């Protein structure tokens, strides 16, 4: 088919690979650099999984015990029981509350930036968000410790009770013991994940074709109706992705949460009371336990749980996006 023109012959000569080209060293180097990430993930998963199962393998703790509610790792006082449920539920509780606070705010902010804000407003708010991302978690923790915790304690120290004439107390939230609490942890986290949720949702709103907006507005709908009935449904997979990413960040945050949450290994009951997360327990106890001790092995099991949560969230994001592609 190919005509043997001079040009073609020259071209084929040029592409005849020399040894150097056949080795294609640059390709190998850049390939190695990219593949190194698979190596890192494998090593990380391998090591943490290996350490994480020592509690069961070496120390002989039944796997089921991990899902019990009693955390009694101290062998010097009675029989030990490595129940991680308080920490797992604590992580879920504080993450859920943070998402509850942060999601409406972040999605609203994303809508503001993509639909409402004039150019000048966007030019101010967007860099502000980038600075938010950059504020280190210890600084958030320090602000939480020195401002939020005393504020909560001073303002809401009395029990909050709703009483009805006949029924008596229908709703009661105990006041803050100290301010170190589930709520304090969730508030600090909600600010920390705000930029994540905002920027990913913003991208999702931006990705919606302009015609959808103009079409809707041409029908005479208001901007809010367009947002509610067209933009939010269209951007839903992106917004869900944003929430999952925010969730991952919140569940994995350690130092800032530990500084304000009060760290009590109890099942979460009231937002005003201290609870403990997986990360807080690791931060507090890792340094006080020795390598190979069952107590520390339990901490490694906690990090394995964290790792499973984060990998699961990556899979979840992929599933969400695959559905979006399919739609």
């Amino acid at each position, binding site marked *: 088919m190919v005509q043997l023109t001079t040009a073609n012959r020259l071209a084929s000569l040029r592409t005849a690979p020399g040894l150097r080209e056949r080795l294609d060293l640059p390709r190998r180097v850049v390939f190695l650099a990219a593949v190194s990430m698979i190596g890192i993930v494998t090593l990380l998963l391998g090591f943490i999984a290996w350490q994480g199962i020592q509690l069961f393998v070496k120390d002989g703790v039944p796997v089921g015990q991990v899902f019990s509610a009693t955390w009694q790792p*101290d062998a010097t*006082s009675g029989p030990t029981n490595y129940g991680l449920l308080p920490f797992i539920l604590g992580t879920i509780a504080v993450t859920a509350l943070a998402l509850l606070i942060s999601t409406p705010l972040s999605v609203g902010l994303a809508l503001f930036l993509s639909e409402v804000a004039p150019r000048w407003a966007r030019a101010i708010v967007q860099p502000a968000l980038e600075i938010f991302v950059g504020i280190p978690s210890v600084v958030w923790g320090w602000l939480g410790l020195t401002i939020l915790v*005393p504020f909560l304690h001073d303002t809401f120290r009395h029990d909050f009770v709703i009483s009805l004439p006949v029924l008596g107390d229908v709703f009661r939230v105990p006041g803050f013991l*100290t301010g*170190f609490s589930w709520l304090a942890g969730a508030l600090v986290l909600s600010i920390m994940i705000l930029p994540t949720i905002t920027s990913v949702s913003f991208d999702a709103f931006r990705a919606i074709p302009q015609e959808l907006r103009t079409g809707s507005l041409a029908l005479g709908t208001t901007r809010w109706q367009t947002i509610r009935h067209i933009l939010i449904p269209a951007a839903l997979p992106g917004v869900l992705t944003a929430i999952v990413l925010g969730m991952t960040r919140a569940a994995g945050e350690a130092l800032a949460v530990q500084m304000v949450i009060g760290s009590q290994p109890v099942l979460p009951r009231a937002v005003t009371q*201290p609870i403990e997360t997986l990360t807080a327990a690791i931060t507090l*106890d890792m340094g006080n*336990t*020795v390598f190979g001790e069952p107590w520390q092995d339990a901490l490694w099991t906690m990090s394995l749980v964290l790792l499973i949560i984060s990998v699961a969230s990556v899979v979840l994001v992929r599933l969400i996006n695959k559905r979006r592609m399919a739609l």
Partner: protein
Amino acid sequence: MLNGIRRISALAVAATVVLSACSSSGSTQSAAPSSATVNCVAGSITTAGSTALQPLIDAAAKQYVAACTGATINVQGGGSGTGLSQIAQGTVQIGASDVLANSKLATPDADKLVDHIVAKQGWIMVTNKDVTGVTNLTTAQATDIWTGKVTNWKGVGGPDLAIVLILRPASSGTRATFKKLVLDGANEATGNTLTEDSNGAVTTAIGTTDGSTSVIGFAYYQDPANAGKLNGLQLDGIDATTANMSNGTYKLSADGHLYTLGQPSGLTAAFLDYMMSPAIQNTLIPAKGYGPVVH
């Protein structure tokens, strides 16, 4: 898997600490009287471990380094567990611990360590300023409070105020010592409680929470930043002082251990000797709120 990595580690470049004795003859001309007695060895070592001992080691290290050019001592906290783990692994030169090595480490590891008791450390029960009228707790009263049997200060002769326990992390040396010496191994209550690791958070929480109580190290109690914020309590009628700790009457105290992997040498040995010298034992240790072990 771990063994495989260990083998690789043989190839890894390890920091080689070059220790060379430096003559201390020059320091005799120095005006500082202490440096005349310091056995100066050059080099660089790292200590890690107990945060309760850290203020003392840090201050002693600063004095030593100031007297001896060429010596560097990195003082790290991290907790007693870190100190014991890392000294057993040999990644630091001194591991500081509030508790005995064999209470944490398995026997083969613990047996390789050499214990150097350099100071006594004491803890004091403290309360919020509002808890008036309570200046002393007996061991039995303290046990009742910490195990949740007594939940109001009026139960021990104080005001009508709910008791809020501010615990240290279960794994911490402070809590383990208190549990052993005062609570006789009983588990702490979980009701009106809070766990704070950081000294700052504990003192802030006690300062702002009515009816709260906790246990803190002498060094932190006498910290000027906490002056006037806390009520210190007697235990069994004995004042929490370094003197009472040294003569054995105040029981909430424990030895501060500095562990080495095998017999120390070079700068490590010189620094441990320095910790036992009069300059540290008679001056720095009482000043920082610890008890001397050499009189």
